[in-house]
């Protein structure tokens, strides 16, 4: 059975169905049902995945798409792609449930009523593209998804977002498009220089030998991914986009779309251009560490909840990039795990913040206070989500952050030590936000708050459960991730524990 194609086809067909349904309520139900079907299929597929298999990409399908350009419809997953696809498939039903009223204009400060059907159809289209981008084993196909997924997100921010939505949407699109176009040059050059007449990723590994060429191509790919992830100093679009996007879209934007950047670094930058990756590692590590500290400090200063969460993510993406480029086994596995956990953690934070904003009609921290007394469940889940953001032991994010720091300490001691300060800063921004919004005397405007209703509990419950379960028992995920990371690092030819051998040995190897 063509699992991955099915996973993409179901949401696309679902999107068509949703846009044809005349009744808004029915449209939402159909969208939810479709996304649950996708989730179920993903779970079944994941159980059939064999981490020990010698085959690198499982469930692989390869068909000619445009023979003239050597482009294939090539999909397949290894452990890294599988967990990210699972993350996407899991977040979409949660986001749909959370966005139940986002588009129909019933929220306190919600924008005027927009087409509900379109919103949910866009969500499903986006889901198909998210699955496609992680599943693509053809570099060109990856690029197509990488660029095409901007469009549904652009409309979701621009049509359904906050007051500054159109500015934020355009900024998001132009930043990403610019990075993507630089990548396009590199993609073309990769094809031309490799002279393999194919874009299939496995065949392109090791195809570029010349170190000079590698460096240029690396930059083309890396800048696109650094904008997408986003790494400091390419990050300025994210706070705007995340703050203006409706909460559900913000979850997918920060939780999944941005992971495409870090995923791309791990999969394409490292493996296609190993020498260049080693050459640029010091630079990337510096950017990552600056991002960790900068994002955390700026987050402390935010007065808007969504912007605060966005800045915390910039700090966290620094950790992920650090883990990817440390090129040790622990750091690589930690970074991959971090991508997934960050999706759960930030997803929960954004969604609960969204519930708060829905109740009060403002995202300013100063407008809240003492929520804990009127809505204890809301406050409690917010606390857990927040604690996962600061990587409290016992929550899954701790595992990944610890692995990244430990893995990168093997090679880059100074960087790891500075990065560890991000953990301390995280405690400040999270706890201070919690204190200002949830504790203290109950603000006048907060008095009428209701606690989380059944739907909202169903949204938050699974995320909190996952954070706790994987915090104590991360083994199932690591079992899937580890072999894939090993394979990635083996094609980079890194020898563990011997820092920076590459430059000394020269380019020929």
């Amino acid at each position, binding site marked *: 059975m063509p699992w991955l194609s099915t996973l993409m086809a179901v949401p696309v067909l679902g999107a068509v169905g949703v846009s044809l349904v005349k009744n808004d309520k029915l449209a939402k139900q159909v969208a939810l049902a479709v996304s649950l079907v996708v989730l179920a299929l993903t779970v079944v597929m994941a159980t059939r995945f064999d981490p020990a298999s010698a085959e690198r990409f499982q469930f692989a399908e390869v068909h000619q798409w445009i023979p003239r350009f050597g482009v294939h419809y090539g999909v397949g997953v290894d452990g890294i792609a599988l967990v990210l696809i699972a993350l996407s498939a899991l977040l979409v039903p949660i986001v749909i449930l959370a966005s139940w009223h986002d588009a129909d204009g019933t929220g306190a400060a919600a924008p005027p009523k927009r087409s509900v059907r379109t919103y949910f159809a866009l969500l499903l289209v986006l889901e198909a593209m998210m699955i496609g981008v992680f599943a693509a084993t053809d570099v060109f196909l990856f690029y197509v998804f990488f660029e095409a997924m901007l*469009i549904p997100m652009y409309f979701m921010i621009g049509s359904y977002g906050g007051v500054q939505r159109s500015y934020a*949407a355009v900024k998001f699109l132009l930043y990403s498009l610019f990075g993507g176009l*630089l990548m396009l*040059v590199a993609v*073309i050059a990769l094809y031309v220089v490799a002279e393999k007449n194919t874009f299939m990723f496995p065949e392109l590994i090791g195809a570029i030998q010349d170190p000079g060429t590698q460096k240029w191509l690396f930059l083309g790919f890396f800048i696109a991914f650094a904008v997408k992830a986003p790494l400091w100093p390419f990050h300025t679009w994210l706070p705007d986009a995340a703050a203006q996007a409706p909460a559900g879209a913000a979850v997918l934007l920060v939780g999944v779309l941005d992971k495409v950047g870090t995923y791309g670094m791990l999969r394409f930058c490292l493996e296609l251009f190993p020498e260049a990756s080693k050459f640029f590692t010091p630079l990337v590590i510096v950017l990552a560490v600056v991002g960790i500290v900068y994002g955390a400090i700026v987050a402390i200063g935010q007065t808007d909840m969504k912007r605060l969460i966005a800045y915390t993510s910039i700090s966290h993406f620094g950790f992920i990039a650090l883990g990817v480029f440390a090129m040790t086994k622990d750091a690589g596995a930690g970074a991959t795990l971090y991508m997934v956990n960050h999706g759960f953690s930030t997803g929960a934070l954004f969604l609960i913040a969204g519930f708060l904003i829905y109740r009060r009609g403002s995202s300013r921290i100063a407008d809240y206070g003492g929520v804990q007394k009127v809505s204890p469940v809301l406050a409690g889940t917010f606390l857990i989500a927040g604690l996962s953001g600061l990587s409290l032991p016992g929550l899954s994010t701790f595992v990944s952050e610890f692995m990244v720091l430990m893995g990168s300490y093997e090679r880059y001691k100074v960087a790891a030590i500075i990065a560890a300060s991000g953990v301390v800063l995280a405690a400040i921004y999270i706890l201070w936000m919690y204190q200002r919004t949830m504790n203290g005397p109950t603000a006048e405007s907060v008095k009428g708050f209701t606690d989380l209703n059944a739907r909202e509990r169903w949204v938050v419950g699974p995320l909190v459960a996952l954070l706790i379960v994987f915090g104590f028992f991360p083994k199932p995920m690591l079992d899937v991730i580890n072999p894939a990371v090993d394979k990635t690092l083996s094609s980079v030819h890194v020898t563990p524990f011997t820092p920076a051998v590459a430059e000394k040995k020269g380019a020929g190897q």
Partner: protein
Amino acid sequence: MNGTIQAPTIEYALLSPMLIVFGAAIIGVLIEAFAPRYLRKSIHMPLTLLALLGAFATTILGAANGLPTSASAMGAVAVDGPALFVWGIILILAFVSVLLINDDEQFVAQAAAVPGSSDEEEAVRSGYAQTEVYPLLLFAVGGMLLFSSANDLLAMFVGLEVMSLPLYLLCGLARRRRLLSQEASVKYFLLGAFSSAFFLYGMALVYGYTGTVSLRGIGDALGAGSGQETLLLIGTAMLGVGLLFKIGAAPFQAWKPDVYQGAPTAVTALMASTVLVAAFGAVLRVFWVALGGLEWNWQPVMWGIAILTMVVGAILAITQTDIKRMLAYSSVAHAGFLLTGVIATGAAAQNAKALSAILFYLAAYGFTTVGAFAVVTMVRDAGGEAGHLSRWAGLGKRSPFLAGVFAFFLLAFAGIPLTSGFFGKYAVFAAAVSGGAVPLVVVGVVSSAIAAFFYVRVIVLMFFNDPAADGPSIAVPTVGTSAVVALAAAATVVLGVFPQPVLDLADQAASALFIR
């Protein structure tokens, strides 16, 4: 003189597309002269469509019979792979444009009546229609066919003029904002005449160096390499000016926005798509066939022009407030992207690749352009089309479908994947990279990013802004207009998702390159 004059051999079958179009044009003139006024349009319309269809069918037939290996009509016309492909595109696009032209709201009742005079009122009252549009269009199309396939400079000049003169007239026939339209017409005529003069003078100088006007002869003479270099170089530059004017490359782009804005939108659609196609056919022929040996001299200049064209088109488009002017500058930028393909010469295989990329790009761009202008004709105010961008605010809420289609065309112009524009750009840039023009491609993608800004701005305006209280209405489209929009959208999707068949076709057309 004794002896007999040798009768020239003409390959009627091969040339039949051109002959059909010209024949129909002449019949059209006769209809104007003899048919009663009320009947004219109902005769013109089917005649024009049939002629274009017939020409297209014979083009296909010509291609199916195998590509000829030598030039036709005593070496004056080269009906080779690229020519047949270009003819095919031109004929389809012209056919589509005719469907748009079949709309009385577009054209003036009587062109000769002074705007605002009693004559004009009289003409409007009695329901006159300027049905000369149809034969003029056919002449222009015929000219394009000749222009893009001419194998000597003289035939090319004839093609250029036959193509241009009817277009100058067509530009002046807008029903609304007639002064603007007439201004556009005069401007286009004057600048066009200048550029033709440049072309003609360049031709004379090149003739002075090589002693021939045939492209093949010029190419051979360059190989022999003797005589006054200066003469040749100045001649080349002047030929270049004449041709680059027609594609609207910077710094010869100034006419495009004015003319595109002033002309009736249906005519703009025709010009924006087909003239570009025909002109690129001619540019390639002159620079690759005749001046191929001079590559080292014209390539650096062409680099500069391509960069300038891309940048100027993209940047000036940002400042535009009129939708047609914006599309005009966008077309300038696209001409720049295409020029990167013209520069990407090398060995025969590389040339074939670049040529096929350009052909694909032209096909993709042509359809999207016609579609975009067709949408423009439908968004109307009390005073005609709502050109000003501010009037387009909130269109996505008034008529989501139309705005959606237009947004899709804009995304295709911007080169977003899964639209035809992406593969066009990809093909041309890939050819340029393998031709060693990486810096040019980097400039290309940067200006694509700049260009994306103004395409996206229109989408923002349509979807994210609230509609104006007295916003424009959406004209109920005629069957023709809706067919055009549907066809263009379909082409944009199909070429964006399954481009392989058309790429194959372009490859086949380009495989043998130009015949000499």
